């Protein structure tokens, strides 16, 4: 075989390298600013640990809610015929396309103190979502759940339903079919969807600051903390950013090849 066929086309390599640089250079810039000697002290500060704790708790809570209501929604969208199905699909996809701040504003109009649902809810139960940690969870769920729903819906559509028929013929009730056949068979897609959902929730900023506010220990997640720290304490901002990059990178790299295919 001539060596010509083995060498990749130069134009591809050139353009591809530029593409890679777009991703690599900003992170290189970040790394260059890291105050390595003070890093551990900075990371031990309340400001950082509070933000990290909040980010982890709220992003995981949002992912859990997405699982509990998102999978059934995906199932309905994939399996049932009903009028307005495309509209529903459009609505579910909307948060993916909307600027997060718009999402936050919408949440405020719906669930704020004078909100469509928020006002009666507040007057009846005294419950108020803005400026609370649950508000952060709601904001995160709003922007991240579409990832799970769309991924799972796609996987369910592509699933050969005859397997579910076979399971039923063997005596499995609907819940058993779901638990032992349907969900395991869409496993890779489910995992990919979960990871994307969590990652999106973890990085959410606009909807959070607009809807839930910004208070250390209660609503100041890591992205908000970085935003605030950028103006007052550059070193802390860099340290926080580094933590976010490492956590996100670890999760995405840990998501192995076979699950990438499901994305």
């Amino acid at each position, binding site marked *: 075989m001539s060596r010509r066929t083995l060498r990749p086309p130069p134009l591809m390599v050139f353009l591809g390298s530029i593409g890679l640089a777009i991703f690599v250079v900003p992170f290189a810039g970040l790394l260059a600013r890291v105050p390595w000697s003070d890093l551990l002290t900075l990371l031990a500060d309340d400001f950082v640990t509070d933000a990290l704790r909040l980010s982890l708790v709220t992003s995981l809570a949002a992912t859990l809610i997405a699982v509990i209501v998102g999978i059934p929604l995906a199932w309905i969208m994939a399996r049932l015929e009903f009028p307005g199905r495309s509209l529903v699909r459009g609505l579910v996809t909307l948060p993916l396309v909307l600027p997060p701040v718009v999402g936050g504003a919408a949440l405020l109009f719906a669930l704020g103190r004078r909100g469509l649902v928020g006002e009666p809810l507040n007057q009846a139960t005294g419950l108020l979502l803005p400026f609370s940690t649950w508000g952060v969870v709601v904001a995160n769920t709003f922007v991240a759940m579409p990832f799970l729903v769309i991924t799972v819906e796609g996987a369910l559509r592509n699933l050969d339903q*005859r*397997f579910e*028929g*076979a*399971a*039923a*013929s*063997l*005596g*499995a*009730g609907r819940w*058993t079919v779901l638990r*032992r*056949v349907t969900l*395991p*068979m869409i*496993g890779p897609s489910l995992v990919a969807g979960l990871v994307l959902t969590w990652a999106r929730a973890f990085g959410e900023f606009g909807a959070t600051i607009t809807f839930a506010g910004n208070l250390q220990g209660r609503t100041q997640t890591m992205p908000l903390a970085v935003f605030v720290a950028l103006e007052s304490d550059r070193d802390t901002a860099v340290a926080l950013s580094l933590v976010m990059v490492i956590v996100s990178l670890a999760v995405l790299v840990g998501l192995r090849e076979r699950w990438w295919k499901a994305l």
Partner: protein
Amino acid sequence: MESALGRGLEAGFGLRRGDSFRIDLRLSIPAGTTVALLGPNGAGKSTAVSAIAGLLPIDSGSISLAGITLDEPAAGVLVPPEARRIGVVFQDFLLFPHMTVIDNVAFGLRSRGVSRAEAMDRARAWLERLDLTGFERRKPPQLSGGQAQRVALARALVIDPDLLLLDEPLAALDVTTRVGLRRALARHLDDFPGPRLVITHDPTEAFLLADEVHIVEDGAVTQSGSPDEIRLRPRTAYAADLAGSNLLFGEATRGQVVVGSHLIHLAERDVDGEVLLTIRPSAISVHRIEPEGSQRNTWQTSIAVMERLGERTRIGTGAPLPLTVELTSEATNDLDLEVGKTVWLAIKATEIGVEAGSVETRSE
């Protein structure tokens, strides 16, 4: 004390799919009998399977099994598939790819609440019965076609069903494996005490596996009867062309096959071992006196049965080799044929279909 009929399948139903397609079937399968639904693709056989298995509701009529009504729209009865005690072997087997062989087989039991230990034991026993010991931990993608079919069979049988339903059980296999497994399948069917329903488009399969064959064309049964009856009196062109062949088992040595007390010469010298010969009734010629020529397959026999079917006549011959022969009614008149008369038969070696009917292999 239940009659054998009471423990079988009683079905008479109609089902409409979409705008144009409709099936109407009547089936009665007593325990211990195998019925085949034979027909071309698109005739409605798979729809019938889905209806009986409970995956599709019927529009009219009823289906009952072992005396229990499964589906009767008029009475508002519809038993869901998971509550019907039917063991189904699907055309593509549909083994759950993410589960091991033993988990697949145990699935039905576990779904019905059987404890894990007991389910595993019973699954293991069935795998052993089907020569699959050692395959427990394998995953379906790692199995050969024949192995997968047997796992699917074990999975259906382990739940102790009231009806065994096989949808094109051999269609997914390559030709050699299919022939090899057909005998084994016949044996497993015979071992099953309840009623058995086999869906197939392969006439040989239907005739070899079933006690009674229902020919389905365009959503309706065009003929029902034992294989011999159909062969003798085919009612439609499909039945005549495809379902009416003579099937003979014999032992071949260098192209010469011993069938009973008779010797048949094949066109191929290179055939040895157990074979299944198929001879179309219209491929056999009838003569009043011994035919001249190079044909080596000629013998004298007598007419045992004669059936006039319009322009065609089918004759059943007697010893030494009972065969069904088809002639035009005109030829029948010209030859002045009658029951009891002696005739000479001739078959060209090239008209004889040969299948190497191997002894069922123990390992694949």
